[in-house]
């Protein structure tokens, strides 16, 4: 990262080749360990349940759900990587977008996925407003203050939704939803669409960060804000834009996930927890890591259900979380986006 301190917009890859090779080797060995642990976990699950079909179904469901977790976590990790804000309100933004989608489907009978056109810009604006109004400036600088403001915001949004929509759970029906068998496992169309949508959006975000001027500016701000402002980047505007893009990700994820879940004002909380785990697992600020971490956490959740049964699927997620926090706090693929 030191190369960026010079502020040169185009820096040739100056790392000595052997260091790069070593980094690649470390990355590969970690990926190998993760894959090995996964294989062992799947085998254990096979032994535990004694039915290949059950395990296969969980793996498929886990991966499909994991894509969605990845998409939610991408927004969170972007915000954390660039602004250093632990956004406790991310789940609440998700819930807001879901109710927005629900409200529009109810009122106009639109196809649920078409509400993306409204939900994503709306959440983008909401994110921009929140950042400008609450988080930027002196009052939002220290870590405790940011935690508390986003925490207060999530309470505000969730209970605002509770006041206006009530607590009774709602569903968003997907017209023409279907199910098809995949080597014995049953896959719902809505789940598959959500997964594919998450991958596409993830790719878009990656492209935005890697291949556009805006993305380069965002990464420059993340690497070194004073340096970025020296070469003429408006740091505050980049922060606002990044926060807004992050919340827009939550908006997109909400629309995609809408048909899969029962919509309640507090559902964001559950997603928020999972998203934090994914963010830490993938490395804070690493967008691709978030997608991979999402898939892993989706699998962990499903496999825990096989091991322990019942409602404890989150327990395995937290065990993984604590292990990663203690042993590898920079994440499995610790590298900034």
């Amino acid at each position, binding site marked *: 990262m030191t190369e960026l301190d010079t502020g040169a917009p185009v820096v040739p890859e100056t790392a000595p080749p052997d260091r790069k090779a070593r980094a690649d080797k470390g990355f590969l060995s970690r990926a190998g360990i993760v894959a090995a642990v996964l294989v062992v976990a799947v085998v254990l699950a096979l032994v535990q349940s004694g039915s290949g079909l059950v395990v296969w179904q969980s793996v498929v469901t886990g991966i499909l759900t994991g894509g969605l977790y990845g998409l939610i976590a991408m927004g969170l990790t972007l915000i954390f990587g660039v602004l250093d804000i632990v956004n406790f309100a991310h789940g609440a933004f998700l819930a807001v977008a879901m109710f927005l989608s629900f409200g529009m489907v109810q009122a106009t009978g639109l196809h649920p996925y078409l509400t993306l056109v409204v939900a994503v810009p709306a959440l983008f604006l909401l994110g921009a407003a929140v950042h400008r109004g609450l988080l930027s400036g002196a009052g939002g600088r220290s870590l405790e203050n940011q935690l*508390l403001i986003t925490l207060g915001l999530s309470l505000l949004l969730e209970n605002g939704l509770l006041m206006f929509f009530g607590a009774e759970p709602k569903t968003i029906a997907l017209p023409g939803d279907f199910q098809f068998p995949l080597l014995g496992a049953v896959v719902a169309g809505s789940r598959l669409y959500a997964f594919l949508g998450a991958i596409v959006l993830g790719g878009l975000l990656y492209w935005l960060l890697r291949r556009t001027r805006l993305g380069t500016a965002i990464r420059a701000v993340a690497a070194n804000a004073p340096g970025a402002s020296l070469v003429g980047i408006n740091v505050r505007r980049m922060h606002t834009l990044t926060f807004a893009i992050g919340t827009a990700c939550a908006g997109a994820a909400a629309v995609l996930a809408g048909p899969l879940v029962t919509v309640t004002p507090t559902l964001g909380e559950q997603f928020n927890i999972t998203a934090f785990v994914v963010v830490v697992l993938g490395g804070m600020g690493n967008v691709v890591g978030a997608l991979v971490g999402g898939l892993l956490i989706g699998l962990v959740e499903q496999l825990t259900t096989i091991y322990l049964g019942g409602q404890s699927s989150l327990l395995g997620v937290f065990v993984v979380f604590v292990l990663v*926090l*203690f042993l590898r706090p920079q994440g499995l693929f610790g590298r900034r986006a």
Partner: protein
Amino acid sequence: MSTITIAAPTGSSEAVKAPPLRPQNKQLAILAILVLVAIPLPLILPAAQGAVAVRILIFLLMAVGWNIMSGFGGMFSFGHAAYFGLGAYTSAYLLVKHNVSPWIGMLAGMAVAAAVAVVIGYFSFRYKLQGAYFALATFAFAEMLRLIVTSSTFANKSVGFSVPLIQDSSLWLIQFPADSPAYFWVALVLAGAAVAISIVFLHSRAGRYVTAIRDDELAAASLGAPVLRHKLMTVALSAAITAVAGAFYTQYYLFVNPDLGFGSAISIQAIVPVVIGGIGTVWGPVVGAIIIGSLTDVTATLLRTPPEFLGFLQGRSGLDVVLYAVLVILIVRLLPKGIVGTLAARWRR
């Protein structure tokens, strides 16, 4: 260094007129007066307000506990529900399964919570979790405990425990008729003791180490402060006080389940009063608990018989939390030191 030696005499010139009492004695005297004033309250207040007063005291216990760790110690905890729940469950378990007095259960709960806090704290400090990572780790542990309790048969899974009712009232079993002032007095004693302990702790030798470590861990360590031991001590004390709140909560509401004990809402309820009152101040938790406790009651009565323009809200829940969420955001933005912290800064000027 020179700036410090120059600044020191000018800064302390007003403090030279030494107060007749040492600060901790002054604070303890104020506390004694507050407690004395509070004693006749349940006899004056109507029954409904009496319940509010008890709730304020429960908030106060949690807030004092959180403030010791996160205010004095600077370790931002987002998982105090863990200790609240351990206190509640330990005392309820001992009472229901082994017929042990809740007073002893309370002590046991304090011990369990402190032990768990030391273990969690040890690993967190050993692996140098800081800031956001520490907050997330405490949160993860609280949620793990909630999930474990929810799936453990010996803790009655998601049903939780109900305190067995007895015919007459008994101080030994902390059980009185529903609107008896005795609940308030018991809570008052507990809360008063907790505030007193926090005052004594803050001004003790250990407390000075703790605030020094909070302000600059590296400097404190290089001057010979035993960092790890004092951090663990702070965490244990904080957890023990929070456990008392949990144990009393169970006795008062006669019921506890995993969400009431370990839910993340509990952690938030421990944080919010302190933020509003002032993090790291002695009186912040007191002021904050009074504001939050009465706010909940005011909104509840408001929604029971809403005025015209709020008619659409009748029967809806959530308004109280919305109000205190707004309050938290405003306080953090406008008065980052909280009400007490800001007033104290003004007073000193």
